[in-house]
């Protein structure tokens, strides 16, 4: 369904002609290369100029790292890079969302927005996973509030006080409403 209106990718690509200067029509183009200027290169000195890319794209690739974890790869490349990280392979619901996102290219919102969503889902999964392993997350420590206590105590105290006041007010209001409800019952 996704590919309904797209041209067959392989037909659109004439790979043999890409950076194959012998096949280019240069000999039939009047003035071919007449204004070429090797100094017209805004990438100097960030790029070490060592000849044109058409001579360089057939390189000896490093050995492939064994793919022993699930690696999602961008559809803008033919496969997994020769080396990759093995941190946190996709799992759970966030993993399913990530797999779906990787059906779309880096050029689309359908790739990136689901990944951001997956990150948020992953946070909830992280809480569950912690509890499963007997770890009770300590937001106070994880947010580094010990440092806040040390360097910004006044505003921390103020914020906590405001939080407590709001929570207190909410409890009071709820109690009031409960009383009202009870009255109706009676």
């Amino acid at each position, binding site marked *: 369904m996704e590919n309904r209106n797209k041209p067959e990718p392989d037909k659109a690509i004439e790979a043999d002609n890409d950076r194959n200067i012998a096949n280019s029509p240069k000999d039939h183009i009047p003035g071919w290369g007449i204004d070429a200027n090797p100094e017209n290169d805004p990438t100097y000195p960030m790029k070490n100029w060592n000849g044109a890319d058409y001579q360089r794209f057939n390189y000896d690739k490093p050995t492939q790292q064994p793919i022993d974890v699930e690696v999602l790869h961008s559809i803008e490349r033919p496969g997994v890079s020769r080396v990759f*990280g093995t941190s946190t392979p996709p799992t759970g619901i966030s993993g399913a969302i990530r797999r779906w996102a990787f059906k779309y290219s880096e050029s689309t919102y359908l790739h990136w927005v689901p990944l951001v969503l997956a*990150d948020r889902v992953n946070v909830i999964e992280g809480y569950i996973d912690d509890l499963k392993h007997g770890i009770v997350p300590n937001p106070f420590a994880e947010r580094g509030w010990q440092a806040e206590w040390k360097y910004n105590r006044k505003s921390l105290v103020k914020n906590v006080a405001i939080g407590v006041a709001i929570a207190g007010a909410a409890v009071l209001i709820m109690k009031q409403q409960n009383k009202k409800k009870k009255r109706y019952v009676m």
Partner: protein
Amino acid sequence: MLAMNFRGPFRVRADRNRPYPEIKHPQDAIVRVTRSCICGSDLHLYHGLVPDTRVGMTFGHEFTGVVEELGSAVTNLKVGDHVMVPFNIACGACPFCQQQLFGNCHESNPQATAVAGIYGYSHTAGGYDGGQAEYVRVPYANVGPTIIPQGMDLDDAVLLTDVVPTGYQAAEMGGIQKGDTVVVFGAGPVGIMAAKCAWLFGAGRVIVIDHIDYRLEFVRNYAQCEAYNFKELGDVVVFLKKTTGWFGADVCIDAVGCDAAGDAFQSLVGRKLPLTGGSATALHWAINSVKKGGIVSIVGVYGPLDTLVPIGNVVNKGITIRANQASVKRLLPTLIDHVMSGRLNPKAIISHRLPLEEVAEGYHIFSAKRDNCIKPVLIPPHARA
């Protein structure tokens, strides 16, 4: 082992139960970390702005360490070498590495083609666990790791893995000519270093813009430059036009990136929601403050989504934009020389040395700009003796 563990935006912890890294490829090394910084780039992860940042990852792309173990194909290092490890993971063989574009390697990141692998920088940068840990896996160890020269301070060495090359390349990409007026947006570690390095390229005047007074004060002294608080300037662009004879600066450098403050709309769509690749306020100012035909150099990091910039002005003013991840390995020989000869003194920007166990405090202090923080360094237990 002990390592940082990401639990979600604004939540990290020091975790004692992380698995030791393993050799996964013949060109891998395992390094025992001796110093590891927290970077402004880590703050983008910490703030939840980088897609595919998975819970449970260890961050950290600026580190030094001692080689513990080597894969069978590593020939340039031996066990016991003390190395600085460039933040770019680079194969050395692909067309981009051959051109010394080590920040753009094609064989280190399966997840995205737009960026090379970076240690501890989400799956969008390859899914590697990073160096805010006791041990770390270092792929392509023949290419990146560089032996720390005798007599070099570890605190200088660790800053050579990112901040110094990035600041330097920011100035380099500015194509600064002798006498040029250079404006640097951002007085974080990268902006401070860019301002310092602008002089090495012959700048005639260096102006830094930020809104945090202690940082402005620091950069004024450290980089011998002018420094202004944009909150006190009214319209930043008008101020910069005026102070450059109404022409604009010759070179503008964006050393802020996607967490930029200063514009409510950019902050809403770029940081709060976020619907764009980040808040591009500093980049917007850079484009509008540079002269016609001027150069804008971008090292500030943005997300992969579309970002709001006045591209029409880029066209109409004939601006050249130059941007990249720093190519650390390419710049190391020059920068080691600048450090050893005393022309650059990176370690002076380190404001906090914290035990790795206090990683959560480190992130908070750096992110919330507490205690005059400029650059925090984490030190693992075995390196503290």
